[in-house]
């Protein structure tokens, strides 16, 4: 099977680069083994938690960071491109390249974010709120949403918080299996008359609050779920992140995959790349577990297989390696140096990933693989947790590589 570009990995990095390439008329296939970390999405993307103003000087202080390979002047455009991709896929985002806004974590902390799905509650800055008071709606029996913690966070913003609980017959049916009363199942239930019944019950709880805050359990049963609730309640209604699996993340995975496929992209799921043919410094073809001797051939290949969770890199007691192509992984250090003793300190293993040149070409034994690019969290040098740069690295590198492949093609 022949394509212009083959992307290994069907998470955020693979889908964003795939959509950009397919939109420009390239023939693109994504080979994906299992679903991605998008399923844990908080509704927000981070770029750099210290602030967008610092982006221009990241390279100076962090020469090994993936951002050091990205032209800071392009960040504003990448931001708009991302918003455009998500808006076209039916999930508009708010945020800008100029300044972070604040998002609410499931434990009620306020954290800086770059872009956030517009249905989530966000704030411009600490103490700057367009709302005066909020009713936080808890759902009886639902254990993945913590209204008291969220109230603590919102009180810091000067909001007056009221917590009220509702129940719904359809949700009680789910409670028969206590472990499966999750955001995803609740979200699937919220369609048709149960959704309207839910909205009516929320409406009955609201007094003079100017904001109604619900757990993020909308969009799967009924795409317009939250808008319908807002129409019926007649107040501003926003959601806050729940513990995973995230209903928004599941929707994101689905909508981005649909967007990719509707642009002509081929999504090959549930498969694994098990072999490749390399000629000098170029990949000639790939083989997968399901397709056996069928060869997947492309001009360019993008590796977007993620970090440890996506098995883009694998750790054993002895080593950390890249399992598909045997790419160089950095930094190499003794196992006792992988970790910091205090779990809250920066953990060196977070920065493990493949080594790349300035155009994000990875290497095998120090030699660049010319028609291969690495994008997303497989790249070395970023600490997504400490730096708050997870989605930023994923999206910016995915867009940069798509742009470079298209520019080269047009030459």
């Amino acid at each position, binding site marked *: 099977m022949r394509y212009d570009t083959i992307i290994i990995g069907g998470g955020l990095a693979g889908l964003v680069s795939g959509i950009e390439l397919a939109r420009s008329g390239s023939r693109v296939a994504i080979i994906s083994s299992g679903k991605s970390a998008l399923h844990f999405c908080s509704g927000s993307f981070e770029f750099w938690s210290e602030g967008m103003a610092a982006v221009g000087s990241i390279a100076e202080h962090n020469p090994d960071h993936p951002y050091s390979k990205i032209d800071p002047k392009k960040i504003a455009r990448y931001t708009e491109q991302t918003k455009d991709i998500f808006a076209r896929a039916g999930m508009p985002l708010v945020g800008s390249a100029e300044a972070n806004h604040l998002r609410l974590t499931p434990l009620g902390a306020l954290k800086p974010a770059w872009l956030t799905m517009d249905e989530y509650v966000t704030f411009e800055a600490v103490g700057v709120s367009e709302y005066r008071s909020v009713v936080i709606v808890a759902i009886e029996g639902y254990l993945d949403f913590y209204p008291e913690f969220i109230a603590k966070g919102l009180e810091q913003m000067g909001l007056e918080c009221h917590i009220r609980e509702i129940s719904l017959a359809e949700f009680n049916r789910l409670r028969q299996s206590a472990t499966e009363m999750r955001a995803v199942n609740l979200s699937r239930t919220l369609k048709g008359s149960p959704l309207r019944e839910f909205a009516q019950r929320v409406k009955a709880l609201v007094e003079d609050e100017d904001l109604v805050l619900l757990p993020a359990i909308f969009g799967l049963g009924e795409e317009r779920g939250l808008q319908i609730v807002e129409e019926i309640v007649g107040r501003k209604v926003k959601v806050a992140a729940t513990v995973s699996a995230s209903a928004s993340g599941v929707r994101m995975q689905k909508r981005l995959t649909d967007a990719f496929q509707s642009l002509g992209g081929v999504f090959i799921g549930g498969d694994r*790349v098990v072999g490749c043919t*390399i000629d000098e410094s170029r990949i000639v073809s790939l083989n997968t577990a399901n397709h056996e001797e069928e060869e997947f051939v492309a001009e360019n290949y993008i590796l977007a297989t993620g970090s440890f969770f996506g098995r883009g890199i694998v750790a054993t007691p002895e080593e950390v390696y890249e399992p598909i192509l045997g790419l160089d992984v950095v930094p190499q250090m003794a196992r006792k140096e992988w970790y910091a003793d205090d779990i809250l300190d920066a953990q060196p293993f977070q920065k493990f990933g493949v080594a790349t040149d300035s155009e994000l070409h990875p290497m095998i034994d120090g030699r660049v693989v010319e028609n291969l690019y690495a994008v997303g969290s497989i790249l070395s040098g970023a600490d997504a947790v400490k730096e708050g740069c997870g989605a930023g690295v994923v999206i910016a590198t995915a867009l940069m590589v798509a742009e470079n492949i298209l520019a080269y093609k047009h030459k």
Partner: protein
Amino acid sequence: MKKQESRNISAGNFEQCTKCTICTVYCPMLEVNPFYPGPKQAGADGERYRLKEPKYYDEALRYCLNCKRCEVSCPSGVRIGDIIALARAKNSRGVPKLRDVLFANTDLVGSVATRVAPMLNRALESKPIRGAMDTLLAIDHRRILPRYAEEKFTTWFAKNALAEQSKYGRSVTYFHGCYANYNDPQLGKDLVKVLNAVGFGVRLMEGERCCGMTKIASGMLSQATADAKRNLAEIRREVGEGRRVIATSSSCAFALRDEYEHILGLDNHDVRSSISLATRFIYRQMERGNIKLAFRKDFKMRVAYHFACHIEKLGWSIYSTSLLRMIEGLELLLLPSQCCGMAGTYGLKRENYNYSQAIGESLFAHIESLGVDCVATDCETCKGQIEMSTSVKVLHPINILAEAIDVEATRKLNDLK
């Protein structure tokens, strides 16, 4: 040029589970049935307890459809569906009912049923008889059972096709399975028509048995193993003589390739890659330029492709959809990939009927909304379910191909007289 093997081989064991819960998002049963513990609990989580003490086995595992969508979604390569299927076969204290034995023995039942097909088909349509089957056998009275053919595919083949197959220079072996043989011989006839038109002779295996999928689903592993061993011996002979073995049923192909090894513990690695699906075989022959197809100029069809669970697990829907896209005059729409609820013989059983229909509900509504001439799918039991639950007829991609090709022109293109 360097050929290198990737170090990307999953152990496929439960200890690889990171408890990420992604599988629970893709389980069709969990969506409609709160009594099912879900793939994470039933699979990797439960396995830890069961290994310690078999008494932790939960009879609610019977709800699992064996659709394997959990495995397709798992980022860690855990064979969740296999873990559940094996736990069920090992621990279930339920004795198979007469009904389950009948459903599991599709080949025995089929060979008897085809002999009395006209009477049996009438009987299966009669309300009092369906009521009686519901009461006596717990086969849901609302369920439309597949009709039986008056003449088996193998009988037709021996009478009408066998003699000329040796005229073709190349040949391929067809694993027809129970459905094409007893219920839908037209599928087998259409495959013979297409393959002959491109210059392939078709061989059948005299000792072919049921692939065993229905027995595996009912936990009758020893009977399934007996069938599987016989099938593997037959397949080995064909492969040894240089032929590929192709199935039209995605579930048969999946059983022969993967369930034999993973559930029955049989070593099939020597023949596994020679077992393929009809659409995949034809597509790959086309891609290599070994065969060519010519289509009728007046062919027009608007088709929605349904992704059967086991073709998703095989990862081979791309061959069927690519082949359909080659047909001039065919407009192809893709349905969202979701289970139709039938899962082989699962949905036939009275206790599963409501779950089965609830799982497929949104798919049926989607199909009705498209205004297509037909739905295409590689699975026979999805066909039965969709035809019963919508007003749209369902064809196999091979049925469509057989209708779309211009046989004379195709023969000419392939240098046949």
